[in-house]
């Protein structure tokens, strides 16, 4: 059995940084995490990938091709489809060692997770090769400022979740870059009471808009709540405990299999023991 985190999210949300920090953090606990770069358009990153799609194909190859006239999007899609046609290459690169742990740094384009089933096919192949998977959806925490944007973010994550059909964790990145005021505001959205969030949106502007869409907001709130669907974990890459907790969360997801919803109660034990634990997940940030 092998394990893989699939890191997805919009451009600039901090995927590559997450990969770098996770690998570095894992090394401190003597764990070996391999990073796979799946973004054929990536320029540079701080981690050294064990496997790099650019060894197989690069967007420049696709864009420079005289016959095809690809723009950046077309080139990306072409590269991903090329990868799918050359799965044996990937299988070969991944090797066969049991208990290997990988993190896949994926391209940001949402199209790959919605109406193009490129990513879905890739995940299916991984599962065939005896991998347990967990998707890690990363969003920039600067976007989490009110109930509307919280719902927007949740729906975007749900949209990807629907096609990928694997266990899912959502993360708010760049907490370390937030101002104090923003951090305080953020705490509301880390608390699980989604219905409360939706009901108490204090945005004065467009209260008519809120009224008009109230039914929809309530229904969304209910679905998110009932299925414990989207809980955002804060990510502060400068905080080792935080990184440890997230790794723990993802590890748990993969051991429990794909059908279980993420249950937060399981993390009570570690939190109580450690007073200085600043994971900000259960209690909110101090």
């Amino acid at each position, binding site marked *: 059995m092998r394990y893989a985190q699939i890191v997805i999210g919009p451009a600039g949300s901090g995927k590559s940084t997450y990969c770098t920090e996770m690998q570095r953090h894992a090394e401190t606990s003597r764990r070996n995490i391999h990073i796979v770069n799946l973004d054929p358009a990536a320029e540079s990153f701080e981690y050294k990938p064990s496997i790099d799609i650019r060894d197989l194909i690069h967007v420049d190859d696709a864009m420079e091709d005289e016959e095809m006239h690809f723009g950046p999007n077309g080139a990306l899609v072409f590269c991903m489809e090329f990868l799918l046609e050359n799965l044996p290459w990937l299988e070969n690169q991944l090797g066969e060692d049991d208990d290997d742990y990988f993190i896949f740094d994926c391209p940001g384009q949402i199209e790959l997770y919605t109406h193009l089933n490129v990513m879905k096919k890739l995940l299916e192949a991984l599962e065939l090769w005896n991998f347990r998977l967990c998707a890690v959806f990363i969003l920039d925490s600067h976007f989490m400022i009110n109930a509307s944007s919280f719902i927007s973010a949740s729906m975007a994550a749900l949209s990807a979740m629907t096609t990928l059909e694997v266990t899912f964790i959502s993360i708010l990145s760049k907490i370390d870059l937030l101002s104090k005021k923003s951090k305080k505001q953020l705490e509301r959205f880390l608390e699980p009471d989604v219905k409360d969030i939706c009901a108490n949106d204090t945005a004065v*502007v467009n209260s008519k808009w809120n009224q008009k869409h109230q039914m929809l907001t309530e229904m969304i709130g209910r679905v998110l709540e009932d299925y414990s669907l989207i809980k955002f974990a804060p990510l502060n890459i400068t905080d080792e405990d935080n990184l440890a907790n997230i790794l723990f969360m993802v590890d748990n997801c993969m051991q429990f299999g794909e059908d279980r919803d993420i249950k937060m109660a399981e993390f009570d034990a570690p939190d109580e023991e450690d007073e200085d634990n600043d994971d900000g997940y259960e209690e909110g940030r101090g």
Partner: protein
Amino acid sequence: MATAEDPEKKAEIDQPLLERHKKPVCLIVLGMAGSGKTTFVQQLTGLLHMKKKAPYVINLDPACREVPYPVNIDIRDTVNYKEVMKQYSLGPNGGIVTSLNLFATKFDQVIKLIEKKSENTEIAIFDTPGQIEVFTWSASGSIISETLGALFPTVVVYVIDTVRSVSPVTFMSNMLYACSILYKLRLPFIIVMNKIDVVSHKFALEWMKDFEMFEEAVERDKSHHANLSRSLSLTLDEFYKDITTVGFSAVTGEGFEEFLAAVDAAVVEYETEYCPEHDRLLKLQAEARTKDKDRQKKKFQHDFDNDVQAQSVSSATSEILLRNRAIGGESSSDDEEHEGRPGDDDDEEDRVGQKSFHNFLEEQKKKQQSKSNKPS
């Protein structure tokens, strides 16, 4: 006195609405890469030209190779995408986001140009970058949509590839994402099911009308999470009530009239639901109730926003840094640009706005005093 004031007040309340009526409706065309946005804009522009209602077209995609329609403002004239990538050592994604950021700092000029054309333009069309998240999950995207929404009747047009959406799971995923955009931009929303010359969108309309039919289709398609699918189908059912859907073919032009009707309805929605709210807030904040002072404050805040934006853009070397600084990070202007339209509940901008108004008053006072002090 009371009766004399009322017609005045009424004129005051009606004025902003009348003003906006003269302004062009701004269509922000969004959609996944490959959904046919640009072809849609091309077809729409052509059809409007034929109706003698030539639109004002703005291209916001810095990475496109060519623009197949007559464009009035092209981001590529202001920002060189390849240069940006080179200068900041960015990949294609970062290049597009940064280009859009840079363009957003000059957006007030775009506004001025559109306002100048108000007299003879009914519709302004904004073609957005191929990657949708570059617009929806970026500071510049928010700034552009919020600025437009505050000044013109603005409508979001979300283009969907009908052909690819025949799969129920893909359809659901697409609709969930559309919902995400609705909550992000908070503007009247029209879904355009494109490519109906290839596949009719009737199936989509049926799914939207009858959620049980849709739910059955989803369950046949995938076996996981049956309960979840049901709840999501119900939720989407509610979503469909809040939006308008039209079928369209960017190739044949089928659906054009229906689309125009949807735009008209959206403008009414904008004016009845967004404008009164916005005007009410402006009145609450402005000290005096004259139109001139509102405009001055709006313009000042607008310029102020852009100054903050320009400062933050000038120093970054990566798109991540750019975005953080633009949004505020450590500075006092936390999340201002996201909190809604200019003219919002906002200490910093209030103080600055009031300060300029205060100065204006002081100057007026001084003028009055110097007049009265003149020897007769």
